[in-house]
């Protein structure tokens, strides 16, 4: 079942026409990966879904409800969590406070999610009272994912979680996303093809602000020519 449906969206940032017809669908319980070279429009696509870069035309439906004209906070409250490219944790707040900003309810379910992310990322449990600014890159990434998830989200948009991280940390982050897959649907933007192909169920390739190819991840794994053409990798 399709949880998120992005149909032919166009987005401008200042005078630049960044997205020129991006379309894709994310099915419940799957990891959908957006691939493409730098500047293809992957990050802008996620920001457009969140309403941070409002779309000029096209539609975005989440649980069959159009959300493209909604304010960012309302989009988030529909059940979409966002993990930005540069993590953007609140560096002056402790790990616990970073999580608590996102926890809008005090119900049992939210508490369970809070406990779950601390089990998923044991590093965060140890650093609960440490300020975000003192965390390593990997720990910041874990906190950013945990913060998005703890807010009762059904769909997680994750932007390049492996960027700038050591391979061993990338592996940890990858494992955590796989673990969360049972509980939430994921749209992942990722340049690291090894990571993307290991956890992705299906892929969409973006090029020059348009969706140019899509399919099952195993098809892309087997199609070297396609990878070379759009991703520049063998």
């Amino acid at each position: 079942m399709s949880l998120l449906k992005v149909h032919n969206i166009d987005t401008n940032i200042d005078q630049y026409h960044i997205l020129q017809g991006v379309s894709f669908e994310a099915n419940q319980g799957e990891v959908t990966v957006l691939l493409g070279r730098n500047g293809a429009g992957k990050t802008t696509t996620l920001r457009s879904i969140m309403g941070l870069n409002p779309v000029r035309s096209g539609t975005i439906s989440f649980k069959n409800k159009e959300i493209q004209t909604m304010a960012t906070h309302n989009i988030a409250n529909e059940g979409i969590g966002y993990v930005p490219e540069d993590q953007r944790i609140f560096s002056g707040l402790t790990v616990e406070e970073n999580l608590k900003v996102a926890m809008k309810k005090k119900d049992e379910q939210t508490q369970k999610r809070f406990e779950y992310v601390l089990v998923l990322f044991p590093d965060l449990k140890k650093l609960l009272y440490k300020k975000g600014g003192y965390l390593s890159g990997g720990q910041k990434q874990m906190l950013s994912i945990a913060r998005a998830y703890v807010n009762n989200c059904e769909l997680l948009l994750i932007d390049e979680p492996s960027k700038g991280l050591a391979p061993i940390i990338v592996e940890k982050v990858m494992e955590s996303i796989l673990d969360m897959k049972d509980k939430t649907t994921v749209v992942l933007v990722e340049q690291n093809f090894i990571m993307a192909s290991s956890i992705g169920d299906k892929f969409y390739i973006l090029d020059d602000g348009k969706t140019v190819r899509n399919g099952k991840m195993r098809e892309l794994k087997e199609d070297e020519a396609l990878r070379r053409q759009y991703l520049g990798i063998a």
Partner: protein
Amino acid sequence: MDAIINITINGLATGMLIFLLAAGLTLIFGLMDVLNFAHGALFLWGAYAGIWVFTQTDSYLLGVFAAVIIGILLGYLLERYIILPVYGNHIRQIMITLGAMLVLGELVKVVWGPNVMIANTPAILSGSWEFSGILIIKYRLFVIFVGLLVFLGLLFLLNRTKLGLVVRAGVMDKEMVQALGINIRKVFLGVFILGAAMAGLAGILLGPYTGVVYAEMGLEFGLLAFIVVIIGGMGSVVGSAVAALLVGILGSFASYYLPDISLAVNMLLMLIVLIFKPSGLMGTKEAVK
């Protein structure tokens, strides 16, 4: 020695008054990225409305209530109709809030006349205590006490409540707070009104402290509050408190010992802080960005 103690108490009281004005301004600056040059007008209207009600009713408490209410009301109108259309544009913010400051300053003269308004000290707070030959004026201690109370209240709000957590997060990254499902506009309005209420309170507190209120004091104290915000660090309430006390005490000593350069002392202090710590005493680099 008694002169030094008296000057210090004066400085602390002045510092607390400036703090009440600067605390709201620093949060508005840090959280909303708004340069509100009309903040002094809220202080001015708080002073006039409060003192007027106090004079008419002979109740200082009612005067305080009126000052806070007028601050809240004007703060709401200012945020909704003057500042909301210019979010994200500093040049327009400076122009329009400076204009609002001038208009509100002139309106005070229309409502209460062009002359200064005499502000008496409430009977219960008038007079002084004498300790070992040192006279301590009761009202000044009262101002220090109220300032301290507001400071502690703000610290509690910011550090012990969910709203405070959201405000602190918002000062660091507004966009991310919205992406977590929080309506930052509502938080903006709440913070703006809180700042306006504190400005109104500072206004009525100043009246009996100086004995008169006058239309130009809005701009005068508004400028001082801006200096304090810059010295303390944008968005930092503790920074504002420290800077306000520094400015208040330094100003008092300078007026007593070096009256010719007393006005330059605050500017000099700001200059030194900006050279060695451009983000202010307790400001973060994020806030400067």
